């Protein structure tokens, strides 16, 4: 039995045989040919087969993964017919008498290299596309049948990392879980696993790749473990845990619409993080008592024009309708130089996460900010809408943003449009300066929502997306917990409420700490809500308060987690 440690990217436990996913290493050898016509014929035949395959993949992706994933393969089909790509390959076969494989691959590489140099994410994605098409044609030329991953039994998929082209061919009903050597919590594998509700461990290192297909493995998506060839005892324990987890989840779902009240009668709000109207429905079904974080980026990304006030009004209204009188916290646009907006010149920045993003961008671009605020103020009429500004670092920023809300309110009144009054205004606390100065901010706003994902990365100066720093990035770090404690104390001193919308709010080990620190509102992905409520119901506030004070004095994230487990052994179930 061997245990490999990685990062838990999607919770749950999978037990079964491993399936080692491997991309073929396609070696291209170059030699000269005598019969140029025969080489042409071979090339055209390969193109035809590739086109047929891509059409099938496109249809499959459209049915199973939706239009966005399918568009990748549509673009690949377009490339397959590209006259320059084909022309250059033909020229290389004809003039240099190169074999089709070498002629094709050198042309593909030449275009991919040009695109890669162009330094925007869009072009890098096209470079990956053309190489993907290139490999497909190469496989056909070399007579290697595409190994459509034929799963015959339920398996745990092990890989270096998985791309959309890799996963489109997988029969998801036969996948028990994933474990990848590379990747991170935001890699394609992690996102796919969470959306399918399958356990996944990522960034587990090269040892994963030494496990051969058929080996019995266990993926523990909570602890981030891959256990290879478990002994009988481990197997039994994990089987029991899996069963208990399933039972707990079923039970939790059955009670998800009931309030979250601790054993000693303390009630907290459990709400959802959502990013569009579908999310609103899912959240409602999972027992969300409102929305703690409505991300509005969906309105702005992947389109060629700025969304106007009317479109935003309709979108917000649709979401507010789902929740009626329950609170919905709308976060104003939170983007920066890492995102590409077709209709706006956002200059490239060396450090986009420390650059012009969130409220900084909105204050600099009134054409972005005003329509959004106006749309929100109009949509909020008759509902329980709250506004929240992201990336606030200074008091001046909050004051400036609040003034703009006032200006918009006045303008709308003058235009004779109905406006929501008494909208609560709050800020995301994700920049350490806001946490440190929480006492001052508490006088300016109605509420705080602590964004622990960013607060952690800024506090520890560690990039969330960097897999090598995964160990450093933990919201359980006492430095982060102390900031949270400080923010909650400051807010309560001024009679303001505090929510938390990072992953920590839905983490079974995080919930008792946050309860104990006095958090008022827990906001999380909809699927985490039923279990979170169930956990809250199993705890007593008095006990959590004691625990919270204890963990604040510990030295490391690891020590904090261990202490919570010691005190509340049942939580390791989840």
């Amino acid at each position, binding site marked *: 039995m061997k245990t490999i440690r990685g990062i838990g990217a999607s919770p749950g436990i999978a037990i079964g045989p491993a399936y080692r996913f491997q991309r073929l290493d396609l070696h291209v050898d170059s030699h000269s040919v005598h019969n140029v016509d025969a080489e042409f014929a071979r090339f055209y035949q390969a193109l035809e087969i590739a086109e047929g395959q891509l059409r099938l993949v496109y249809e499959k992706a459209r049915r199973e993964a939706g239009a966005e994933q399918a568009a990748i393969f549509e673009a690949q089909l377009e490339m397959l017919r*590209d*006259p*320059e790509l084909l022309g250059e390959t033909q020229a290389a076969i004809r003039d240099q008498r190169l074999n089709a494989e070498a002629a094709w691959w050198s042309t593909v590489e030449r275009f991919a290299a040009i*695109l890669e140099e162009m330094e925007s994410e869009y072009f890098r994605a*096209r470079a990956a596309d053309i190489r993907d098409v290139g490999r497909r044609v190469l496989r056909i030329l070399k007579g290697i049948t595409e190994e459509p991953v034929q799963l015959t039994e339920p398996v745990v998929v092990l890989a270096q990392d998985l791309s959309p082209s890799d996963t489109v061919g997988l029969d998801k009903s036969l996948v028990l879980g994933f474990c990848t050597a590379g990747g991170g919590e935001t890699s394609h594998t992690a996102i796919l696993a969470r959306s399918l509700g399958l356990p996944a461990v990522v960034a587990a290192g090269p040892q994963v790749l030494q496990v051969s297909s058929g080996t019995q493995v266990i993926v523990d998506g909570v602890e981030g473990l891959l256990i290879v060839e478990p002994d009988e005892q481990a197997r039994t324990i994990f089987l029991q845990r899996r069963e208990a987890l399933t039972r707990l989840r079923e039970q939790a779902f059955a009670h998800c619409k009931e309030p979250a009240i601790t054993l000693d009668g303390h009630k907290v709000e459990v709400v959802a993080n959502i990013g569009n109207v579908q999310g609103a429905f899912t959240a409602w079904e999972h027992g969300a008592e409102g929305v703690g974080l409505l991300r509005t980026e969906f309105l702005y990304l992947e389109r060629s024009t700025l969304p106007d006030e009317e479109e935003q009004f309709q979108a917000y209204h649709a979401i507010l309708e789902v929740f009626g009188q329950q609170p919905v916290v709308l976060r104003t646009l939170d983007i920066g130089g890492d995102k590409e907006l077709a209709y706006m010149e956002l200059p490239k920045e060396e450090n986009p996460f420390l650059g012009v993003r969130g409220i900084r961008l909105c204050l600099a671009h009134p054409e972005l900010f005003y329509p959004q605020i106006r749309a929100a103020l109009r949509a909020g009429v008759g509902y329980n809408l709250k506004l929240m500004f992201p990336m606030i670092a200074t008091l001046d920023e909050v004051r400036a943003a609040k003034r703009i809300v006032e200006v918009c309110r006045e303008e709308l009144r003058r235009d004779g449009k109905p406006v929501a009054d008494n909208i609560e205004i709050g800020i995301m606390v994700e920049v350490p300066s806001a946490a440190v100065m929480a006492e001052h901010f508490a006088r300016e706003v109605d509420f705080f929502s602590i964004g622990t994902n960013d607060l952690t990365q800024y506090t520890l100066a560690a990039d969330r997306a960097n897999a090598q720093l995964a160990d450093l990035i933990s919201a359980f770090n006492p430095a982060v917990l102390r900031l949270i404690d400080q923010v909650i104390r400051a807010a309560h001193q001024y009679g303001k409420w505090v929510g938390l919308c990072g992953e920590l709010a839905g983490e079974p080990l995080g919930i008792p700490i946050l309860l104990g620190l006095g958090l008022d509102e827990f906001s999380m992905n909809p699927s985490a809500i039923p279990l979170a409520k169930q956990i809250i119901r199993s705890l007593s506030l008095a006990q959590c308060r004691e625990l919270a004070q204890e963990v604040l004095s510990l030295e490391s994230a690891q020590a904090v987690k261990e202490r919570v487990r010691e005190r509340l052994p049942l939580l390791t179930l989840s």
Partner: protein
Amino acid sequence: MVETKVLIKNKVGLHARPASLFVQTASKFKSAITAIHGERKANAKSILSVLTLGADQGAELILQAEGEDAEEAVQALVNLIESNFGEAE
């Protein structure tokens, strides 16, 4: 040969969807069509070639067409560019 100059005004420039529309339009004609941006030349019927032009907003493009429907081809492409590829501004 027909030749004309045209200014790229849409925000995205000749990338993404606009580039795709440009190539689709060019491909409807029999004539050989070349798009020139500064030093770079592209086959207007090749998406890869057009992408490598790097024609952003504000780029001046020279369109050349040779063939029986050269006149119509250039006109169609100019119309497409001047309509800002259907993007609202």
